């Protein structure tokens, strides 16, 4: 039996609607496909190969350059009218409470059209070039290529051949239905038509982008199929929000690791006192070590048909992994109608605490309790989570140490930078 749900897919590109109608090859417009991209020029941002703190050379780009480039290009596309709406005209607020969920009222984000069927029981599905994918996107929606400079310094080329390396270019494009200002998509190796599945190289690329932006307020996110990804073409999302995400403020409890697991320097914790159960991976000797470990975990999940979401936070130093089951519950009719009526699809941003609401009533009445209630439906049960966690540890060659650490209490994850006062102490689980 095939499990499906009906949803109105989010439109991330202006070319998404007529995807089925255009003939392939020689499309006659500047797209990101094999027909156009190899002979086109896009700006290239080349990131530092080793994002550690090294003194900059004179001709390296200044530290805020990446942000300037991204926001400047984004604003430029705003003036060109490429977005479906002005997201800055949508009301937004931080809901009072310990975690500070961020709610937004956006009545125009979701189309008023017939919902499509999405299969939610297969996390891995083969790439289908007949369906919409990012090679069909017009180049005006692409902001720049994102490639490894191979050196210790970043640099920027205003215009360079799109296949500057021997492999397919990685492209950063706008999301025409942005959740927030600056919402972009990172599409690794766009010409290779990779389906939505994580591999080590792509994951490392995403970490590099977080490190390059070097801002605690710039996060990347990933949704697997079955966890509310709408397009089966490998992509990450990213945007700025100058407040901490609730999940970043939640308590965590370190999972002690036995010898073998410590080699990479990665620390693993469990999220505490948060509606969705998840793992937190941080530090690591190098970005590569962190990417290796987390991508192994993701690969196990997708190979074993467990939908999941990933949040990359703290400039690539901290990664949240959320296995989830909401779509399956929805397909089996196990979600309450009240929650279904909000039409909130809990993908990575919602799980992290940034919730876009479609109806004004929901927005006015949004509370920490209501957000908690919604997100609690997303989480795996404690038993199932422990089971999955054990498999993930296996796959990542981690061994949980049997020795209990002295303190059994939840350890608070420090807030990276935050202007608002956060209530200290543990949350009481309702």
């Amino acid at each position, binding site marked *: 039996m095939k499990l499906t749900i009906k949803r109105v897919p989010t439109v991330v590109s202006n070319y998404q609607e007529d995807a089925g109608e255009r003939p392939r090859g020689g499309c006659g417009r500047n797209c990101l496909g094999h027909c156009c991209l190899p002979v086109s020029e896009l*700006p290239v941002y080349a990131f530092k190969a080793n994002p550690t703190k090294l003194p900059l050379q004179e001709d390296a*780009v*200044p530290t*805020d*350059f990446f*942000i*300037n*480039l*991204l*926001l*400047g*290009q*984004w*604003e*430029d596309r705003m*003036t060109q009218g490429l977005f479906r709406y*002005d997201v*800055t*005209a*949508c*009301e*937004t*607020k*931080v809901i009072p409470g310990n975690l*500070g969920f*961020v709610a937004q009222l956006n009545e125009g984000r979701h189309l008023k059209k017939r919902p499509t069927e999405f299969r939610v029981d297969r996390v891995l599905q083969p790439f289908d070039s007949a369906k919409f994918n990012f090679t069909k996107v017009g180049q005006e929606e692409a902001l720049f290529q994102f490639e490894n400079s191979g050196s210790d310094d970043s*640099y*920027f*080329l*205003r215009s360079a051949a799109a296949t500057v390396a021997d492999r397919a270019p990685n492209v950063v494009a706008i999301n025409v239905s942005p959740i*927030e*200002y*600056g919402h972009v998509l990172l599409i690794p190796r766009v010409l290779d038509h990779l389906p939505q599945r994580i591999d080590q190289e792509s994951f490392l690329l995403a970490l590099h982008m977080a490190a390059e932006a070097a801002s605690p*307020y710039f996060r990347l996110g990933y949704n697997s199929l079955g966890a509310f990804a709408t397009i089966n073409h490998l992509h990450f999302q990213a945007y*700025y*929000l*100058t*407040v901490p995400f609730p999940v970043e403020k939640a308590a965590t409890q370190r999972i002690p690791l036995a010898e073998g697991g410590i080699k990479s320097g990665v620390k693993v914790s469990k999220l505490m006192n948060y509606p969705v159960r998840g793992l937190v991976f941080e530090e690591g000797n190098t970005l590569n070590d962190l990417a290796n470990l987390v991508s192994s975990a993701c690969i196990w999940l997708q190979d074993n048909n467990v939908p999941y979401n990933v949040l990359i936070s703290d400039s690539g130093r901290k990664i949240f992994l959320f296995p989830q089951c909401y779509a399956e519950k929805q397909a089996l009719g196990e979600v309450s109608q009240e929650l279904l009526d909000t039409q909130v699809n809990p993908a990575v941003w919602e799980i992290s605490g940034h919730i876009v609401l479609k109806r004004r009533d929901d927005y006015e009445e949004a509370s920490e309790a209501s957000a908690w209630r919604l997100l609690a439906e997303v989480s795996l049960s404690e038993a199932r989570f422990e089971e999955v966690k054990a498999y993930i540890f296996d796959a990542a060659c981690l061994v949980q140490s049997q020795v209990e650490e002295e303190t059994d209490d939840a350890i608070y994850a420090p807030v990276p930078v935050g*202007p*608002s006062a956060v209530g200290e102490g543990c949350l009481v689980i309702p």
Partner: protein
Amino acid sequence: MEELDELRGSFLLTDPAMPGHPIVYASRGLAALTGYPRRELLGRNARLFQGAATDRAAVSGVREAVRAQRAHQVAILNYRRDGSPHWVLLHLAPVFHAADGRVLHFLAVQVPIAPASPPRRHPGRPAPLAACREEARGEEELPCASHVGEVFVDIDKRGLEAEELRIASGCDKEMALSTANNIFSTLNRYSKLTGLVVCERRCDSVGIPALSSSLNLSLGRIKQSFVLTDRHLPDMPIVYASDAFLSLTGKDFCCSNHLTYPGYSREEILGCNCRFLNGPGTSAEVLEEINQHICREEACTVHLLNYRKDGSTFRDLLHVSPIRNSSGKVAFHVWVHLDESAKHDFSGLTPEVWQLGAVGAVRVAVRSLSASGSLLRPSQ
């Protein structure tokens, strides 16, 4: 003050620092309206326009506004040199020194008020030759449509019931305001020569809401040259200015970071309208275009000639855009400047994208921080 001679309208400037609070400048329009040649007005106190039938309460209101150094508008019966009475809308405004806030002048604009009913034809009665503060009905062309039929009115034929109270129309008030604005603009355009920046209101931070420290911090990280203005406050004052903007208004002869002629200080410009950057060479059409876009809450990019503090000019690539806060409504406007004649290193970005980067960074800061309630200082 010869530049003021170019302006239309009936107005005068006084100097409150001199004994007797005399008139120090009278426009040609005022001379025509009141019948006094300009040389006869200089050195006199403006009460010379008042007369027997001038309402004492109105006069006392004006006196009080002068004492309190604030703007004031009142319809008042004045007398011309020949003794004939006429009604004017008197628009009084103090002219402040931008840096130290002292009152340099009082500006008084007189706009004739048309009678509500057709004027009765009375034989002109000679009124006592008392000095009155009379509004002069200028015979120059008036912009308001309602005055079209009365462009030139023969003074002798006008018979006014002196006791009949007149009320200024919206048109009259607009006329007064626009004349006053023009005068302020002119004073500023030539202030480079006088060395003074003037303001319509005392330019200190007391009148404007203070931005929160977290917003100031976030804005402080933005490297471009920009200011934020608040359209909801009178005369759309500057509420934030970046360091780079202050440097932009200074002159750097040595091509180093050390400015040989420093620009405006933050204290000088916070609370002031942006017009202090403009000068005689600044295109009025471009300024109007900017105003139109601001009113329509749209962004625009323009090239215009602007002036540094020392009076030298520079070609400015200016981008103005509305900035919304978390309520979704426009809270500020951002003005990002770029001196096109100076050398810049954009590391490969085009100047336009570099500027838009500042706009984006301001948007993110204002939106996010207002969502968490930390846009204004709590004491507001």
